[in-house]
């Protein structure tokens, strides 16, 4: 066997070795993504791919009903509770990944193993997602992610799990570092669910005209207004009220409700944030302790 043949064979052998640690997660008729066996009762997959609160997990031999235990809206990590009977892959360290390093994305679709070798295009430091999630490392690829490979496992050449592949901006493949998967699953294991940071305000955008913009010393012509304060919420405890114009959060100007959602999602439960509002012509400051979103 020549070098090329043995190289080709080793690539396929590696995929075959790790294939039993990935599953197919079926979310509806004709819709499925991939998932990674995490431990004997957990599968992790892409939160964005989950439309319902249940899914069918297919291993190569069998299929199992899975319950969605937690969706981390901020990191795109979904945790499924399922006894798949498969063993978890060896975990590596995403810190060992380097730009240009070949890795393999392994997923599953209807009993068939899916595999795609790819060079890591970019490796960078921790970053914050557009939803406010803390991602342990930047890992990007140069191609669009196939839908069936959403939630697939990223293995290095030793067969160690380094990350999970998900679609990033414009469908481009990015990967969530194994350290982030560990952080999310550890929290779910601790609480049985994922506690969600919560203020208890509903916000809507408002547009300021030039006079208002100047008077409020705003750089942009948008702001958000409080259109609701939940009963028994941190926002109510702090004294926020309907009609307050929210100007800043922790001394950074606020221009959209999405930005507030992102900031709060990135803030831990128990942290104190400073909100500055305009009420009846005067500015007021409030300290709000971020709480946990009530579960009923």
């Amino acid at each position, binding site marked *: 066997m020549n070098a090329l043949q043995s190289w080709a064979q080793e690539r396929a052998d590696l995929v075959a070795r790790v294939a039993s640690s990935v599953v197919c997660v079926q979310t509806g*008729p004709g819709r499925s993504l991939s998932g990674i066996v995490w431990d004997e009762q957990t599968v992790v997959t892409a939160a964005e791919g989950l439309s319902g609160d249940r899914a069918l997990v297919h291993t190569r031999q069998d299929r199992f009903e899975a319950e*969605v235990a937690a969706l981390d809206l901020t990191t795109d990590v979904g945790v499924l509770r399922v006894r798949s009977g498969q063993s978890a892959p060896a975990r590596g360290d995403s810190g060992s990944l380097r730009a240009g390093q070949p890795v393999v994305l392994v997923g599953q679709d209807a009993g068939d193993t899916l595999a795609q070798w790819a060079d890591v295009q970019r490796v960078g430091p921790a970053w914050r997602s557009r939803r406010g999630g803390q991602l342990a490392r930047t890992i990007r690829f140069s191609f669009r992610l196939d839908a069936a490979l959403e939630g697939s496992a990223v293995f290095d050449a030793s067969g160690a799990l380094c990350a999970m592949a998900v679609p990033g901006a414009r469908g481009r493949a990015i990967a969530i570092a194994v350290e982030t998967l560990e952080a999310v699953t550890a929290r779910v294991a601790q609480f049985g669910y994922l506690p969600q940071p919560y203020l*208890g305000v509903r916000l809507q955008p408002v547009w300021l005209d030039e006079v208002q913009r100047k008077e409020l010393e705003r750089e942009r012509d948008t702001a958000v207004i409080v259109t609701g304060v939940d009963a028994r919420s941190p926002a109510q405890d702090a004294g926020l009220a309907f009609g307050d114009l929210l100007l800043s959060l922790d001394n950074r100007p606020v221009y959209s409700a999405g930005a507030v959602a992102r900031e*709060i999602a990135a803030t831990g439960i128990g942290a104190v944030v400073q909100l500055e509002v305009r009420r009846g012509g005067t500015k007021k400051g409030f300290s709000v302790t971020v709480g946990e*979103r009530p579960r009923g």
Partner: protein
Amino acid sequence: MKAIAAAATAPLRQELALRLQAAGFEAAQLVEDPQALHEALAQEARSWVVTAGPSNLVRPFVRTALQARVPVLALIEGDPAALRGMLQGGAAAVLDLRASAEAIRASSAAIHAGLVVWQPSAELDPSPGAKPAPLSPREREVLAGVAAGLSNKLIGRQLALSPNTVKFHLQEAFDKLGVASRAEAVAVAMRRGELSI
């Protein structure tokens, strides 16, 4: 490509068959509910879907077709606004129920090429998301449960609804928000002031 005609009532199915014929297509099958459509699509490898009726009756058929990644043409009676959020990521045409045979033929060609067609009309605003439909109080309650990480079963228990009813309200909310996942629904609802942060 075989056309599958889907409509909830017998008069609509009859109307649909006639309209298809006038446009030069033949309906290979007539189905009356989304489950039957789902099964028909599973059997027919190469097919497309034509449906007709008011938005609320047409919506489940459009959803089934889009989920199966099959082109779908909807002839709408009344206001099609409720379909607006659904059309992302699929080949779909939304026409008025009185659309001409020529418009139906042209739209068929367009959706088979993977395009989205929205028939301009005086009472319609064709820009997607320009006037987002507000969520109902029930949809907001259900979404708050989703945001807290509850399953449909637990949400149902708290609101005294069956899990299927929860699922129904959630799907309605997904359509109004133009999203396909629980995660996206929560994010969009927060951004629009429909869900507290």
